């Protein structure tokens, strides 16, 4: 993926230049970037907001992610604007490459998230955010082939609660997130929306759990329930275990092992996941 490499290069190159704004939040409290471009883990959007802007600041961040499961590659890149520790606006582009076939599926995602309550570290109750991910499928051939009802676009809505507990696990900081997502998406929307099994919104449960081994490294796992809308093509839930390296407020790196289950009748798909987020402003 040449564009991705150029993108990552530009991101890295800019890092030393923009290091003076939007750094008012505590390190790690911006999370990393999930596969659809929202602040979160790898698969799950969290209640955290992208960027280190405190309530008097704004931030701009960019990410790039690569997932290499057995028969597919999923690339994603994008950017997020953080406004006053209240609002997150994000754009992302996903490319799903079917290895050994001439096919690839592109999808654009526009996201918005609003923090409704709290602070992930300091408030008594968990930080609570509501978000939306509007997805536009650029290549609808495969979505039509597998029998999706809607092959142009779809919208996911989610409500996320996140909380960090200082020193809660043998003195280590513990983090959890629980997210409820209303969705009709088949395989994150890459195979369209709805199908013969089901064509209405369903609430899916997603969750993450992480332990911070020091101030820079987090070890965790995630689970993302997915709908099963397509007739004859069982869709399974996704999960991962991850290590995130967050050395400072300028960038972070995440490595994970992801299990996506079967995709459109394939064998179970699992493999490594790598993601980079740079904070430009």
């Amino acid at each position, binding site marked *: 993926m040449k564009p991705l490499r150029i993108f990552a290069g530009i991101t890295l190159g800019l890092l030393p230049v923009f290091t003076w704004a939007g750094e008012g939040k505590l390190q790690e409290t911006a999370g990393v970037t999930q596969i659809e471009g929202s602040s979160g883990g790898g698969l799950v959007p969290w209640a955290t907001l992208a960027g280190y802007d405190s309530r008097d600041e704004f931030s701009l961040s960019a990410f790039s992610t690569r997932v290499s499961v057995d028969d597919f590659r999923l690339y994603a890149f994008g950017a997020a604007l953080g406004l006053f520790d209240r609002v997150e606006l994000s754009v992302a582009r996903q490319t799903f490459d079917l290895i050994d076939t001439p096919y690839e599926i592109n999808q654009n995602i526009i996201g918005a998230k609003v923090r409704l309550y709290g602070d992930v570290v300091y408030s008594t109750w968990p930080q609570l955010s509501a978000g939306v991910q509007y997805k536009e499928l650029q290549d609808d051939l495969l979505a039509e082939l597998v029998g999706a009802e809607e092959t142009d676009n779809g919208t996911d809505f989610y409500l996320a609660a996140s909380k960090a507990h200082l020193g809660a696990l043998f003195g280590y900081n513990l983090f959890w997130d629980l997210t409820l997502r209303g969705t009709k998406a088949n395989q994150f929307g890459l195979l369209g929306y709805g199908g013969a099994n089901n064509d209405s919104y369903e609430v899916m449960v997603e969750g993450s759990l992480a332990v911070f081994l020091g101030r820079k490294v987090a070890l965790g796992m995630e689970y993302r329930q997915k709908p099963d809308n397509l007739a004859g093509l069982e869709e399974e839930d996704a*999960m991962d275990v991850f290590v995130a390296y967050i050395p400072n407020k300028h960038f972070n790196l995440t490595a994970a092992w992801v299990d996506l289950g079967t995709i459109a009748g394939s064998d179970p798909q699992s493999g490594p996941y790598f993601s980079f987020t740079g904070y430009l402003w």
Partner: protein
Amino acid sequence: MLRHSLTVLLVFLLLGCQSLSSSRSLFDELGGMPVIEKITDNFIDEISFDQQIVQHFKESDIDRFRAKLIEQICVEAGGPCTYSGDSMVDVHTKMNITEAEFNRTVDLLINAMNKAGVAHRTQNKLLARLAPMRADIIYR
């Protein structure tokens, strides 16, 4: 395989959360008064070299600040002290401390604890005791 290891990890974490309370007090775990004094001195050092945060201490009596902070950390850690200073709200009123400044000061305290040789896990326990004060400190 991933599914199984996730279950094992989850059980481990839940067990870990249950064994929260340790019989040893945080005061002892920190290393008692000598280490609390060291943390406080390092913290004052960190603040004095921070161009932004030091502005809030322009009119402070540093000797008094040092004495009251030592008492306060001692009390919060469950040590044999009495806090004789003013309330957090009184101290910080009209200082107009922003969230960003507060978080930066947390970073300075972490530096101070690092330099005093306080273990990461012990640091987290102390931060957890101090965290509830935030509401009385920022935007006053």
